[in-house]
């Protein structure tokens, strides 16, 4: 749980970094966040704590996969907004929860522990504003160079 102020300068920086340098993002003091902007929550709180939870570590041990954060693959990210996206000047409250854990195989037969978790964002009134649903995987080290996850 952490507070995340939505800052105009950060939106400007993020928009520039994603080739989204348009007036709505650059010039409006109450600029909306770009669709994937809430990924910057990591400046306010470490996310992925659920990736080190006992359930995940147990699944990795059983599958023979090292839960090495440096080798974590991001398979999917989904941002859901309840109405217009948050805008500069707001402060959001965040909370992370673990979804489910499944063990799969890569195309070349390596074990892969797939974890789904959610970071939820609510506003000062306590209303839900957005969720980011992450699907990430710890994958067994490849024998050679791996092109695909």
């Amino acid at each position: 749980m952490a507070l995340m102020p939505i800052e105009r300068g950060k939106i400007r920086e993020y928009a520039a970094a994603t080739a989204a340098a348009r007036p709505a993002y650059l010039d409006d003091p109450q600029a909306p966040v770009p669709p994937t902007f809430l990924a910057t929550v990591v400046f306010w709180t470490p996310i992925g704590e659920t990736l080190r939870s006992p359930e995940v570590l147990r699944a990795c041990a059983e599958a023979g996969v090292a839960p090495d954060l440096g080798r974590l693959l991001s398979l999917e990210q989904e941002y859901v907004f309840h109405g217009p996206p948050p805008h500069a000047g707001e402060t959001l409250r965040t909370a992370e929860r673990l979804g489910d854990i499944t063990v799969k195989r890569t195309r070349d037969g390596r074990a892969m522990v797939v974890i789904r978790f959610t970071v939820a964002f609510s506003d000062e009134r306590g209303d839900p504003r957005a969720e980011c649903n992450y699907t990430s995987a710890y994958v067994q080290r490849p024998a050679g160079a791996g092109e695909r996850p």
Partner: protein
Amino acid sequence: MTGLVPGARLPERTFGPVTLTDIVRYQGASGDLNPIHHDDEFARAAGFPAAISVGMLGAGWLAAYCTEHLGEAAVRRFRTRFSLVVYRGDRLTASAEVVRLFEQDREPRVELAVRLRKDDGSVVIDGTAEFAVP
């Protein structure tokens, strides 16, 4: 934009060729400083021939492409699935096709199938975007 009917396509937009500058600028902006995206030696130790781009940079480009056409404040859902890694020098093309028009929370919306592909046609990211429409 006009003509949001199922099957309609947005004009395509090209990004890149991806440079290390693109990658580190996104990493700085996003706070994801995983060295696998800018340190070739680190990436080789992990089994890749060179540092790989950030999946979320591609997602961010796709998001910029969609908001340019449908409005910055109109996004309601944006889902991206990463299917192929990207290396420096790859050029990426964004495309989108209208899947359906529907109503949710008493708001008319459009759903788009979005895609980012390399010049050889291989798909780097596919996903779904939903935007409120007037």
